[in-house]
C-alpha cells in the first residue's frame, strides 16, 4: 500500500524497472535453453516429426497375416537420349501405367493401376538400380481394382538403364493377432506390476515398525535416566554380537549334520511340537506375577534355551524348504515357480536367521540392561548412581564411537587402528563421562527423542537418493534385471513410507491413548489397542498410493538396468523403433491409470 502514496513518476519508474528485469530474465532463459523456433519450421524436421508421431499413433500390438501383390514397370530416369524404348506391358494380369512414360528427377508423374485386387492398399516405390526403395506414394484400389495417384520422382544420378517402379498391394488375411512386440510388452508390463508389488511389500514390512520409531508423539515421552540409557545401548551391542555369532555357529552345526532328510523332517516336527507344547503350558491368561529372583532366573534360562532351539528349528525349516522347493520344481511343470518360491523363501530364511537372532537377542539384552539401569537409578542413592553412570556411560560412549570409527574405516580404508579405533573410543568415553558429570544422575533423558531424530535423519537421507541412482548400485550387487529394481525400489519405499506412516502416527487422536494408558496397559498394549486401530486406514491408503508410485517408478528404473518395461522402452527408443516404443508407452498408460482407479476404489472402502 505504501507504493501507492509515492509520486507517479517514481511508480512508473519502478514498473518500468520491473518490466525490464522480467524481460532480461526471460531473455537469458531463452538463450540458456537454446530456444529456437526456426528449427520448428524446418521441412526435413517436420517430415521426421510427422513420421514419428504417426508411428507413435500406431502402437505395434496387433498384426495381420498379409498377402502381397508386386507389380513392376521398367522406368527411365531421366528419359534416354533420342527415342524412348517401347515398354511392353502385360495387360493380362494386374498392371500399372505411368504417364509420362519417362521423366526427369523431381518431375511429377501419374501412376495408374488396373486389375489389382479390389479394396487393397499399399505403397508405390521407385526402386533404384542399387536396390534402394524410395516411396512415391501410397494407393488404395477401388472395387474394380483400379487406382490413380501422383508422385514426385526422386532426385537421383542419371542412369541410362531402366529402373523400376513397383506397386505393392497388400491385403490382410484372417483376424488380427497379437504381434511379437505385443507379447513382449505384455510380459514386461506384468513383470513391472509384480516388481512394484514386491518392492512395496518388502518396503512396507520394514517401514511399519520403523514408522513408530520415527513418530515424535510416541517417542518424545520415552525418557530414561542415564544408567538405563547406557546399559540399554551396551545390552543391544552385546546382544546383537552374541545373538548373531551363536546363530551362525548353530547354522554351521545344523549344516554339518545334514544329508539326512529324516533328520530334518524329524527336527522340524519335534520342534513345532515342542513350541506348541511350551506355549500352551507357559502362556497363561493372567499377567505373570512379579516373582522371586530364583523363579525369574529359571525363567530367563528357559527363555534363553527356547531361543537357541528356535534358531536351530529355523535353520531346519529353511533346509527343509530348500529340499521341498527343489523337489517340487520338476513335477509341478508349469506351476514350477511355486517350487522355486518355496526354495527362495527357504534360502532367505537361512540367510535372515542370524539377523533375526541378533535383533531379538539385542532387544532382549537391551531391555534387560534398561531394566537393570532403571532399577539401579531408582533404588540406589544418587552418589552411587553417579559412580556407576561414570563407568557405564563411558563404556557405552566408547563402544558407540568405536562402531562409528569402524564404519568410517570400512568406507575410507584408513587402516590405522589408532585413528579408527583408539581415538574414537577415547573420545566416546570422554563424552560419556562428561554427560555423566553434566546431568543429574536420576534425571530422565529424552532418549526417545534422540532415537526419533536419528531415524528421521536416516530416512530423509535415503529418501533423497533417487531410485534410479540406487538401482545402479544394486545392479552391481545382484546383476541387471528386475531383482535389482525390486531391491532399489524397496529401499526407497522404506524411507518414503516410513515418513508418511510416522506422520500418520503423529496425527492420531491422543484421547484413546490416554484412556488405554490409564487402564495400566504397557507400551506395546497401548500401541496395539489405541494406536493401531487409528492408523490402519491411512496406512492402507498410503500403501496403495505407494504401489501406484512404484509402478510408475519401475517404468523408468529399467533405463538403469532395473528390469521391467523401462528396459524394453529404452531399447526401442534407441533402435528408433517408435511403433514398439509406442506399444510400451500405451501399456504403461493403461496400467498406471487402472492402478489409480483401483487404488482409489480400495482407499474408499477403508477410510
Amino acid at each position, binding site marked *: 500500500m505504501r507504493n501507492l502514496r509515492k509520486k507517479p513518476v517514481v511508480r512508473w519508474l519502478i514498473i518500468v524497472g520491473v518490466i525490464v528485469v522480467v524481460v532480461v530474465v526471460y531473455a537469458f532463459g531463452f538463450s540458456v535453453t537454446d530456444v529456437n523456433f526456426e528449427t520448428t519450421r524446418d521441412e526435413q524436421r517436420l517430415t521426421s516429426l510427422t513420421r514419428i508421431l504417426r508411428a507413435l499413433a500406431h502402437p505395434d500390438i496387433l498384426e495381420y497375416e498379409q498377402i502381397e501383390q508386386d507389380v513392376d514397370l521398367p522406368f527411365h530416369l531421366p528419359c534416354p537420349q533420342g527415342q524412348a524404348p517401347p515398354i511392353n506391358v502385360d495387360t493380362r494380369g494386374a498392371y500399372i501405367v505411368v504417364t509420362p512414360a519417362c521423366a526427369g528427377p523431381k518431375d511429377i508423374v501419374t501412376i495408374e493401376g488396373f486389375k489389382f485386387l479390389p479394396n487393397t492398399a499399399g505403397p508405390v516405390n521407385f526402386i533404384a538400380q542399387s536396390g534402394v526403395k524410395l516411396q512415391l506414394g501410397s494407393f488404395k484400389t477401388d472395387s474394380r481394382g483400379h487406382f490413380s495417384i501422383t508422385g514426385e520422382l526422386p532426385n537421383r544420378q542419371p542412369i541410362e538403364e531402366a529402373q523400376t517402379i513397383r506397386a505393392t498391394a497388400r491385403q490382410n488375411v484372417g483376424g488380427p493377432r497379437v504381434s511379437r512386440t505385443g507379447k513382449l510388452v505384455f510380459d514386461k508390463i506384468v513383470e513391472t506390476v509384480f516388481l512394484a508389488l514386491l518392492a512395496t511389500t518388502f518396503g512396507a514390512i520394514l517401514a511399519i515398525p520403523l514408522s513408530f520409531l520415527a513418530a515424535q508423539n510416541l517417542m518424545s515421552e520415552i525418557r530414561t535416566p542415564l544408567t538405563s540409557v547406557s546399559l540399554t545401548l551396551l545390552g543391544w551391542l552385546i546382544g546383537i554380537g552374541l545373538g548373531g555369532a551363536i546363530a551362525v555357529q548353530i547354522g554351521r552345526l545344523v549344516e554339518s549334520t545334514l544329508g539326512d532328510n529324516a533328520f530334518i523332517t524329524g527336527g522340524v516336527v519335534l520342534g513345532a511340537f515342542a513350541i506348541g507344547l511350551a506355549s500352551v503350558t507357559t*502362556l*497363561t*491368561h*493372567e*499377567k*505373570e506375577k*512379579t516373582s522371586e529372583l530364583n523363579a525369574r532366573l529359571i525363567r530367563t534360562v528357559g527363555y534363553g534355551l527356547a531361543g537357541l532351539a528356535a534358531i536351530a528349528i529355523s535353520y531346519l525349516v529353511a533346509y527343509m524348504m530348500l529340499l521341498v522347493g527343489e523337489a517340487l520344481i520338476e513335477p509341478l511343470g508349469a506351476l514350477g515357480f511355486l517350487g522355486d518360491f518355496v526354495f527362495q523363501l527357504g534360502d532367505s530364511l537361512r540367510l535372515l536367521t542370524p539377523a533375526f537372532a541378533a535383533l531379538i537377542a539385542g532387544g532382549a539384552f537391551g531391555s534387560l540392561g534398561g531394566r537393570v539401569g*532403571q*532399577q539401579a537409578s*531408582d533404588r540406589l542413592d544418587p552418589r552411587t548412581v553417579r559412580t556407576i553412570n561414570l563407568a557405564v556411560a563411558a563404556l557405552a560412549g566408547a563402544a558407540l564411537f568405536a562402531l562409528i570409527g569402524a564404519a568410517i574405516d570400512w568406507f575410507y580404508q584408513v587402516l590405522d587402528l589408532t585413528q579408527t579405533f583408539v581415538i574414537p573410543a577415547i573420545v566416546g568415553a570422554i563424552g560419556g563421562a562428561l554427560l555423566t558429570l553434566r546431568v543429574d544422575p536420576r534425571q530422565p533423558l529424552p532418549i526417545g527423542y534422540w532415537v526419533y531424530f536419528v531415524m528421521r535423519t536416516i530416512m530423509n537421507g535415503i529418501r533423497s537418493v533417487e531410485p534410479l541412482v540406487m538401482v545402479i548400485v544394486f545392479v552391481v550387487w545382484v546383476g541387471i534385471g528386475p531383482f535389482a529394481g525390486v531391491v532399489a525400489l524397496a529401499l526407497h519405499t522404506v524411507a518414503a513410507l516410513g515418513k508418511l506412516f510416522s506422520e500418520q502416527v503423529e496425527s492420531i*487422536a491422543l*484421547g*484413546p491413548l*490416554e*484412556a*488405554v*494408558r*490409564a*487402564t*495400566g*496397559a*504397557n507400551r*506395546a*498394549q497401548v500401541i*496395539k*489397542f*489405541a494406536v493401531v*486401530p*487409528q492408523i*490402519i*486406514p491411512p496406512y492402507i491408503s498410503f500403501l496403495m498410493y505407494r504401489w501406484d508410485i512404484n509402478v510408475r517408478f519401475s517404468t523408468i528404473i529399467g533405463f538403469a538396468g532395473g528390469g521391467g518395461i523401462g528396459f524394453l522402452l529404452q531399447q526401442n527408443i534407441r533402435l528408433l523403433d517408435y511403433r514398439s516404443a509406442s506399444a510400451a508407452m500405451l501399456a504403461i498408460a493403461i496400467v498406471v491409470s487402472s492402478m489409480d482407479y483401483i487404488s482409489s476404489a480400495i482407499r474408499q472402502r477403508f477410510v
Partner: protein
Amino acid sequence: MLEVKNLTKIYPGDVLALDNVSFTVESGEFLAVIGLSGSGKSTLLRCINRLVEPTDGQVIWNGVDVTQASQDELLHIRRKIGMVFQNFNLVNRSKVITNVLSGRLGYVNPALSLINRFSKNDMEMAREQLERVGIADQAQKRADELSGGQQQRVGIARAMMQEPEIVLADEPVASLDPVLAHSIMQHLEDINQNEGVMVICSLHFLDLVHRYASRAIALNEGRLMFDGPPKAIDDARFKEIYGQEAERVG
C-alpha cells in the same frame, strides 16, 4: 484412603496448574471437584494416576506412595484406578466390545493381548458390564456408531473392567444433555454405593454436585479453595470459588 499432600504441578513454560493442594478421600466417598475451566481439575485427576507427572508433592494410596512408584509398580497401581473422560476417549474404529476389553489390559498376559486373545472370564465380564449400563446389544458395533450417551456408558464399562477401587471421572457429563447427564451420573452413583468404589468426579453444575456428591472440593487457579459438604457452598463461598462476577445458574 487416598491422601494428596502438597501436590504441585508446573507445566513447561512456568504454567502453575496445581499449587500445593492437599486433601484426603476416604474409601467409599463420592468426591466432587469443582472450579472454573482451567482451574486445574483435570490436572489434579491425572496426577493421581500419574498420566501427568506431578512436579512436587505426594499421592499416597493405602500407604503406597504413587508418586515414587517405579514404572512396573505404576502399571499395577493404574489397573486399580478406572478413568472416565469428558470426550469418552474411545477408540472410534474399534468395536464396542474391544473398547470394553481394553479395560482388562492391566491384568491379562501382554503377549496374548497383543494377538487379541482374551480369556472366557474376561469376555463374560465385558458382556456383564455392557449389560449393566444397558447397551449389551451394541457390543459388535463400531464405537463411533454409538450416540454420545452410549459412548460414555462404554467408557464406564471399560473403567469397571479394571475392577477398580477408585474411579476418576473427568467432567463425565460435560458433553451430554441434562437428561443423559443424570443417567450417566446415576451409573457412577450405582458404582459408588453398590460396589463401594471411591469416585472422584470433576463437575461443572452445582445441582449435580448437590444431588450426587458426598463431599466437594473446589479449585481456583490451582489452589484449594473449599473442602466440605456440598450443602456448605453458599453464595459467599460460591463467589470465592468462581469469582466475584459469577452468577449462579441451575
